Each structure stands twice: as structure tokens, then as C-alpha cells.
């Protein structure tokens, strides 16, 4: 093919990829999918449900006003306003009265199936002669008491008062929020409450940010009408996620703009040409397009975090055009493709080793990290191809060496010459770096709590969150007990057992509170067990009527219940409940899985996790889930497994370099500095008191990618003075642009950005220093 046709053709291919991506790209912003753990699909599904389920998606709004009535009215108005927003699934200022009415309808005539959730233990005594007499007296007392009026019309079919217990359980299920005249109110009785649930994850900040603005705007309008006397407080994950995203966007904009401006200014000064700068940016663009397309094809979507961090990882692609142009500058008007052919082995090997390093991420347990591995590996290859197919052919034959490039080159040569005078000193430097890295890593502490990698939460907002949440949403987001079954019935059977166990735990003081679907629905098996136990005594009906008669009741009115003791009604089923208004309530607890159903029981944040695990965790089909611990544990495990994976990657890199050079010293100079720099950077950060996390490891991976490039380029060009000068200049230019790009991120208030910024900038700089030191220490010049 004519070389002149190659760049337009390559651009055409890139344009086609871009066009396809414009239609096919699906950007995922949810939190849970990114944290998906492949090892356990059930826990992964539950983790997603907890992170993005109804409790996580709930927004609690507390409206204070000059009077309780004004606050309540404002809360109702605010709920109505929110209900009209497309992101709001539901917004209420009070409980749904339909739930209670629906519950009473479903329960009617089924009392005989709901006498006890421990029928074998409790019913024999309750249904004995003495027990029935006691029950009849209790019924009489109850009818005389506060519950008597509403119960009176039900007791003929429920003389053992099963409905009373069921209603109390339903009330507990709905929560302990105070209700005044149909409106939720704060503990002081003077504030109105709104409970809203969003349709999407609180971490889908692109959707939640406009909602937060809408909320602020609508409340301000209500407040104006009320004469400025209203105060709004909010408790939600959404608010923190949005605040965090806003800070991230602000910092990323400022820091990226600064670093970009710095890098551009440097490269313009280095090359003296805007055209060269544009050509140098083509591989980055190509890498991003190829990476995104590959990820979209392989995973069906691209996560925003993959785009963010993956784009950083493929920043290494800028090394290739810089290297090509630097060598073209010293080639003195030769054909750029000839220059490319001369340095192609170094470029190819550099890219291959970088891809080998990034490909290690493909073996991660976490969907997000695998995505990054695919994105970065494919992106680097795309960047390399674009460098060869577009940048190199269109690089001008004559590039004037700029004063900055010349100065860098000459001074680097002098430094290198000086270093070569003290090979042992360089060896000592490398040994000292190794000692620093190893000792630092030995004392390092690791933070596997990925939830803490966000920006620090504002103390005032946290305090407001606690005030608004008090007494309303004490349940912990992400802490639950889980039962799974092949169908609803199997899950409900296990849920019944779990509920009994949790009740015992509460009695034992291990669990202040919980909300279980058991309060609303028992398994058909448990309902039938109720009937089976009550049906063991043929004379039970007669005894009951006798006891009721003795207690002053008209026994003949209870004959229908007695008939139901012999011929029980149909058990209440999940299908019936889901077809009622109670389906909305059930949806909080029920997950449909590919292979069945899971039921969640939400636990109080103050529950004693270890005690609960010991007491209830061993029940059949029961798993106690602490999402934070689950994810952190999985990350800790992954971090542990990442080290051997990285080692394998490193061995691959060394093997590739050894295959190319077939000698020890060049191989060591090409590969050792990068590994040493990555370790030293992490060790140094540890010595400086930084707690390390997974992002530091990703940063180290990028350092390996860059550092190996520097080493390989240096080894490939060391024999020729001109080439070496060009390589020194290009390596320093690439290193400086990397430090500029990432160094500023090290100033971010986000632990995530800080981690990757500090590790990459420090490691990249150390890589270059160690490459020079290694070249001198291993006498690369004389070894040839």
C-alpha cells in the first residue's frame, strides 16, 4: 500500500469507530456494577441491590416551620412537587393508607393460618383447655380496651386474635416514624417529613444532580410563599454523591486544565510547532476510541470510571509520537517512515510490555478493574497503531531541534556522562531505592474500604444528615440478612426461620431492630403448619366454643372459625400480595434472581455483626451481608492476588525484553528501573504516612508501562550518540508531561485522584532517574 494513503485510511477507520461508538456506546454510571464480584453471583446481585436498592435510593427530607401545621403542609406540598419529577419513583409525606386496608382484606378469613410463627412450640399450650379459657378472657379484655372497637367486627373469624399481632407486625414493618393526621412528623412533632425514592442509584450523579437542584428550587419557592420561615434538612446518599461529583468535576476541571496547559506549553516549547502537538495527540484520541470500542464490545457498556482511569492509563501513548518526533528531529531530513522503521522495535516492544502489564487487570475478580484492563490494553495498541499509521507518515521530514529540546538533550547527556563515572554509586543508588521501596512497603498500611476513597464528607452536611435521619431511617445501608430460594416459597420458608432467629437476637440484645418481610407474609408451609397443629385435636372446636361461652360470648357466632379449623382456607401467597397495593412494600425486600428469589431483612446499623453471624449465619440458606465488609474483603483478597498477577506480568515483560536483547545487562536496564520505580514510589509514599489503596497499585501499573518504555527506548538507542540524545530528550519530555499531568492530581482532595496522581508522578520521575542510573551502573555503553 502507498504510504501516503495510510494516514487517511487510518483516520477513516478511526472515524468509523467514532461513528459506531456514537450510536452504540452505553455509558454506565451506577456504582454497584463497577464493584460487581464475579465469584459469587448471588452476593453480587445482593450487593447491587443494597447499593442501589430502595433503602439506598431513599431521600429523607425534614421540613421545619413556624408551626407543626405549616411544616406539615409544606412537606405535603414538597412531596407533591417531587412526585412530578421524572427521577422520583415515589414521594410521600405520610404512609399509604391503602397498605393497611389491603392487608386487612388479604388477611380476612385466614386467622387460623396465622396463629403462631412457632406453632409446634406455642400452639399446644394455647389450644389446650386452659389456654382456650385464657384466650377467651383475653379476647374479652381486648374488646373492652383501646383495640376493641376496630377488632369487634373481625373477632368472629379470629377469636384467638391473630390479626391483632399481624397488624402490630405490619406497623413495625412500616417503621417507627410518628404519624400525625396522616402525615409523617419529626420526633419533636413540629416538623414534616417527606420520604422520596429515586428511580436510579444515588451514585448516578448525572441524574441526581438535576434532581437536587430541582429540590432546592422548589423548596425555595415554597419557602417564599411561607415568608421565609421554612427550613429544609436532607438525609440521603444522593446528596453526598452529588456533592462529591461536583467537587470532583470542579477539581478535575481545574487540575486537568492546569496540567493540560502545562503539558501543551511544554510540548510547544519542545517541538516548536502546533502541528506536531496535534500529531502527538492523535494516538491519545485513537487509543481512547479503540479502548472504548473494545470495552463496549466486550462488556456491553463502558463505565464512567473506566473512561476516567482508562484514559489516564493510555496516557502512556503520548510517549510514542514524542519518541518518533524526537528521532525524526535528529534524523536530519530523512524519511519519517525510515525513522519509524529504525525505532519500531523499541516502540513495538514498549507497547507489548505495556499491554502485558495492563492485561494483568483482565484477571481481576472485579468487573470494573477488568474493564479498565481491556480498555487500557486495547487503547495502548490503538495508540501504537495510530502513531505508526498517522503520526509517523505525517511527521515533517525536517524538524528543527528547538532550544529546549537541545538543552534537555545536552544536559541529560552530561548528567549521563557524569553518572557513568560512578557505576558503583549508581548501583548504590539503585540498592538504596530498593531498600526504601521494600522497607516502605513492609510498613505500609492498606485501605481496602473503597467507600472511603471518596472525598471527605462535609461535617455540617453529615450533622444535618443525622438530624434528618434520626428516628426515620436507622437501618444501615448495606447491612442485611439474606435468604435465597429457588422460588418464593423456599425463600419464605428460610425467611421464617431467619425471623425467629433475629427475634432471639433482639431478645439477647444483639440487634436493636430489623425489618423483615416475615412481618407481612409467612411461607405457605408455616401457614399450613399452623393448621396442622391446631387440627390435631378433634375436640378443639367444641372446646373453643365452650370457653367462649363461659367468657360471655355468643358461641354460635364463632362456628365459621371452628369450621375453618377443620377445613382451612387457602394460604396467603406471594402472588396475591404482589397483586395488591402491598407490592410496593414487598419490593423493598424481594429480589428476583436468575435462578430464584432472594429476600432481604434490613438490620439496624447498631447490630452486633459477629454475634448475629454466629447465631443466624449458619441457618440453611441464610447469609449475613455487610456490603461494606463484603466489598472491602473482596478488594483485600483481590489486592493479595494482584501481586502474583503483577509478578507474572513483570516476568512477561522481562521475558519480552530478554528475547529482544538476548543479554542480561540491556534486559536489566530496560526493565529493572520501572519495577524499582514503582516499588520505590509506593514505599516512599508509605514512609510519608500515606495509606495505600487499590488506586496506588493501578498507578504503579502505569509507572511500569511508562518506565519500561523509557528503559527500552534507552537500550535500543544507546549505541548511537544521535539516537541516544533523541531518546534522552523524548524520554524526559514524556516523563515531564506525565509528571505535569498526574502531579497536579496529587493535590486533589479526592483520595482516589490523589492516590493515582501521587503514585504515577512520583513513579514516572523515578523511572527516568533509575533508567539513567541503571544505564550507568550496568555500563551499557561499554557492554556493547
Amino acid at each position, binding site marked *: 500500500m502507498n504510504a501516503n494513503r495510510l494516514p487517511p485510511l487510518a483516520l477513516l477507520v478511526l472515524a468509523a469507530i467514532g461513528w459506531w461508538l456514537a450510536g452504540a456506546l452505553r455509558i454506565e454510571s451506577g456504582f454497584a456494577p463497577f464493584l460487581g464480584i464475579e465469584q459469587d453471583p448471588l452476593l453480587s446481585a445482593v450487593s447491587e441491590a443494597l447499593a442501589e436498592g430502595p433503602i439506598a435510593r431513599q431521600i429523607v427530607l425534614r421540613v421545619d416551620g413556624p408551626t407543626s401545621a405549616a411544616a406539615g403542609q409544606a412537606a405535603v406540598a414538597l412531596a407533591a412537587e417531587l412526585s412530578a419529577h421524572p427521577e422520583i419513583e415515589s414521594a410521600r409525606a405520610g404512609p399509604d393508607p391503602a397498605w*393497611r386496608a389491603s392487608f386487612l382484606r388479604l388477611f380476612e378469613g385466614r386467622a387460623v393460618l396465622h396463629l403462631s410463627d412457632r406453632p409446634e412450640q406455642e400452639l399446644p399450650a394455647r389450644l389446650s383447655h386452659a389456654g382456650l379459657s385464657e384466650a377467651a378472657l383475653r379476647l374479652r379484655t381486648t*374488646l373492652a380496651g*383501646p383495640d*376493641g*372497637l376496630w377488632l369487634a367486627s373481625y373477632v368472629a373469624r379470629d377469636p384467638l386474635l391473630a390479626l391483632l399481632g399481624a397488624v402490630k407486625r405490619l406497623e413495625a414493618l412500616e417503621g417507627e416514624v410518628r404519624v400525625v393526621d*396522616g402525615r409523617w412528623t419529626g420526633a419533636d412533632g413540629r416538623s414534616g417529613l417527606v420520604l422520596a425514592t429515586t428511580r436510579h442509584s444515588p451514585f448516578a450523579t448525572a441524574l441526581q444532580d438535576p434532581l437536587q437542584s430541582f429540590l432546592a428550587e422548589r423548596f425555595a419557592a415554597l419557602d417564599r410563599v411561607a415568608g421565609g420561615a421554612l427550613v429544609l434538612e436532607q438525609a440521603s446518599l444522593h446528596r453526598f454523591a452529588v456533592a462529591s461529583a461536583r467537587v470532583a468535576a470542579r477539581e478535575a476541571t481545574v487540575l486537568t486544565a492546569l496540567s493540560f496547559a502545562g503539558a501543551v506549553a511544554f510540548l510547544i516549547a519542545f517541538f516548536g510547532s502546533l502541528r506536531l502537538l496535534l500529531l502527538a495527540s492523535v494516538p491519545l484520541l485513537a487509543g481512547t476510541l479503540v479502548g472504548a470500542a473494545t470495552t463496549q464490545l466486550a462488556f456491553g457498556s463502558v463505565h464512567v470510571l473506566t473512561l476516567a482511569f482508562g484514559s489516564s492509563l493510555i496516557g502512556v501513548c503520548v510517549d510514542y509520537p514524542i519518541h518518533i518526533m524526537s528521532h525524526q528531529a535528529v534524523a536530519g531530513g530523512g524519511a519519517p517512515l525510515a525513522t519509524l522503521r529504525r525505532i519500531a522495535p523499541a516502540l513495538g516492544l514498549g507497547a507489548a510490555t505495556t499491554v502485558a502489564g495492563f492485561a494483568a487487570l483482565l484477571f481481576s475478580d472485579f468487573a470494573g478493574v477488568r474493564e479498565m484492563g481491556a480498555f487500557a490494553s486495547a487503547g495502548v495498541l490503538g495508540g501504537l497503531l495510530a502513531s505508526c499509521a498517522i503520526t509517523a507518515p505525517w511527521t515533517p521530514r525536517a524538524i528543527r531541534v528547538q532550544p529546549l529540546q537541545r538543552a534537555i538533550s545536552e544536559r541529560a547527556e552530561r548528567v549521563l556522562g557524569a553518572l557513568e563515572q560512578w557505576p558503583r554509586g549508581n548501583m548504590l543508588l539503585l540498592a538504596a531505592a530498593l531498600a526504601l521501596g521494600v522497607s516502605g512497603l513492609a510498613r505500609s498500611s492498606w485501605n481496602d474500604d473503597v467507600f472511603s476513597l471518596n472525598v471527605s464528607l462535609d461535617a455540617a452536611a453529615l450533622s444535618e444528615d443525622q438530624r434528618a435521619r434520626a428516628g426515620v431511617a436507622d437501618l444501615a445501608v448495606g447491612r442485611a440478612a439474606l435468604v435465597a430460594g429457588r422460588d418464593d416459597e423456599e425463600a419464605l420458608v428460610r425467611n421464617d426461620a431467619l425471623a425467629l432467629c433475629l427475634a432471639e437476637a433482639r431478645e439477647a440484645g444483639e440487634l436493636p431492630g430489623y425489618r423483615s418481610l416475615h412481618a407481612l407474609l409467612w411461607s405457605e408451609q408455616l401457614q399450613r403448619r399452623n393448621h396442622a397443629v391446631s387440627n390435631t385435636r378433634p375436640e378443639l372446636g367444641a372446646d373453643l366454643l365452650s370457653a367462649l361461652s363461659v367468657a*360471655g*360470648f355468643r358461641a354460635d357466632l364463632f362456628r365459621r372459625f371452628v369450621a375453618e379449623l377443620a377445613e382451612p382456607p387457602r394460604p396467603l401467597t406471594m402472588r396475591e400480595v404482589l397483586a395488591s397495593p402491598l407490592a410496593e412494600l414487598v419490593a423493598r425486600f424481594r429480589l428476583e434472581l436468575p435462578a430464584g428469589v432472594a429476600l432481604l431483612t434490613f438490620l439496624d446499623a447498631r447490630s452486633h455483626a459477629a454475634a448475629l453471624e454466629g447465631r443466624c449465619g449458619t441457618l440453611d440458606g441464610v447469609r449475613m451481608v455487610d456490603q461494606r465488609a463484603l466489598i472491602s474483603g473482596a478488594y483485600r483478597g483481590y489486592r493479595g492476588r494482584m501481586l502474583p498477577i503483577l509478578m507474572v506480568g513483570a516476568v512477561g515483560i522481562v521475558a519480552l525484553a530478554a528475547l529482544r536483547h538476548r543479554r542480561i545487562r540491556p534486559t536489566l536496564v530496560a526493565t529493572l528501573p520501572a519495577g524499582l520505580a514503582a516499588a520505590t514510589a509506593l514505599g516512599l509514599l508509605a514512609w510519608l504516612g500515606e495509606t495505600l489503596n487499590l488506586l496506588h497499585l493501578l498507578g504503579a501499573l502505569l509507572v511500569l508501562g511508562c518506565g519500561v518504555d523509557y528503559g527500552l527506548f534507552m537500550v535500543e538507542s544507546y549505541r548511537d550518540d544521535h539516537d541516544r540524545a533523541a531518546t534522552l530528550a523524548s524520554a524526559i519530555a514524556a516523563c515531564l508531561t506525565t509528571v505535569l499531568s498526574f502531579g497536579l492530581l496529587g493535590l486533589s482532595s479526592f483520595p482516589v485522584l490523589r492516590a493515582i496522581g501521587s503514585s504515577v508522578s512520583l513513579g514516572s520521575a523515578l523511572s527516568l532517574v533509575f533508567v539513567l542510573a541503571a544505564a550507568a551502573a550496568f555500563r551499557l555503553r561499554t557492554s556493547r
Partner: protein
Amino acid sequence: MPFRAHRLCVALCVLLVSSGAGKPGSRVTLEDLAAGLARLPGLEARFREERRFAVLAEPLVNEGSLYFAPPRFLLWRVERPIRSELLLRDREVSVSAEGRTQRIDLASEPLARAFVDGFLLLLSGDVSGIRAAYEVRLEAEPSDERWRIELLPRAEEARAAITSLEMWGAGSKPEGLALRLTSGDEIRTRFVSIDAARSFSPSELEELFRAPRP
């Protein structure tokens, strides 16, 4: 707790008429009752309540006291045979029995809500509001100051639970009420020792109507 505000209903019905003493020698109107209630300084009375449930051969009998401090506070206290209390503070209702206190959501209890709404409408002298919520039948004999008022709720939810609420009395002394439910059950309450001019000191208000802790 659902449907437990019967005592509240009873008490409120008493209040509806307690200050409605007709003007001697003239016909007692709903406007008179409402205006009288609006001027009520307070109320204290003893009561004897009979609960006539279909499932029971004989009525259940409760005895106790009620206290009303307009416009916000009502306490209905059963003393025999089992002690329990129902307290209305503003529009929040709580019930205490057997050592436990629970709040009642009026919105989920049409029965209680119908009475509270009626009570507040009368208290504010909102006769048109009363007529909008209830069909009112009032019988009064100016000659002996005796009167009888029957309220039939118009709201569908309330009508589903309540057939009628009937109250009777003489002058400023309410003597009883009957609450008839659609199920056929009935609550009949007689009032004695009525002090319709009762006023409460701040310490009494604090003592009698203190907000319960659930």
C-alpha cells in the same frame, strides 16, 4: 393502631353538645351548639360506657373520666375494669394501655378522623363545614331544654364504618351518646358529674395532657 379511637369519638361527641345549651324559650340550632362550644372554657365528667358487641351476650362496661381543655387537649381515661388512656394533643392521638403507648394515625382510621374533624369544625364555629361533613338531625324541646342531635357522616370511608352518632342532653349538660356502627355494634355512654365550666391551671394542663413517650 387502627380503629381504636372510639373513646375519642365518644368524648368528642359529648363536647359537641356540652356547650350547646339552647337559649331558654327558643329553638336550639346547630349554630347555637357550635357557638356555645367555641366559648367552652373546659370540661370534666365521669362516664359509664357500655359496649354492645354482637359477639357478646352482655355488654362490656367501662367507667372513667374525661377532661377537655380547648382547643388542643382531650384526655379520655378508663379507670375500671382495666385502666387505659386516650389522649388528643392537637391532631395527634395516642393510646396507653397495659404499660404501652402507641400513636394513632387519624388518616388511616376514618372513624376517628370523622369525629376529630367534626369536633374541630364545631369548635371553630364552622357550621357550614359541619354540614358539609355530616348530615345533621337536631331535635330540641325549648320547654324543657332537652335536645338530641344525630350526625350521619357523608364521607364514604366514614359511612363504611359508622351508621350514626347520637347525642342527647339537657341545657348545658350532655347526658349521653350512642355510637352505632355498620356492623350492628353499638357504644352507649352516659355522663355524670359534668363540669362544663371547667378551667385548667397550667400545672393541671401539664399533668393531665403531657405528651406520652412511646
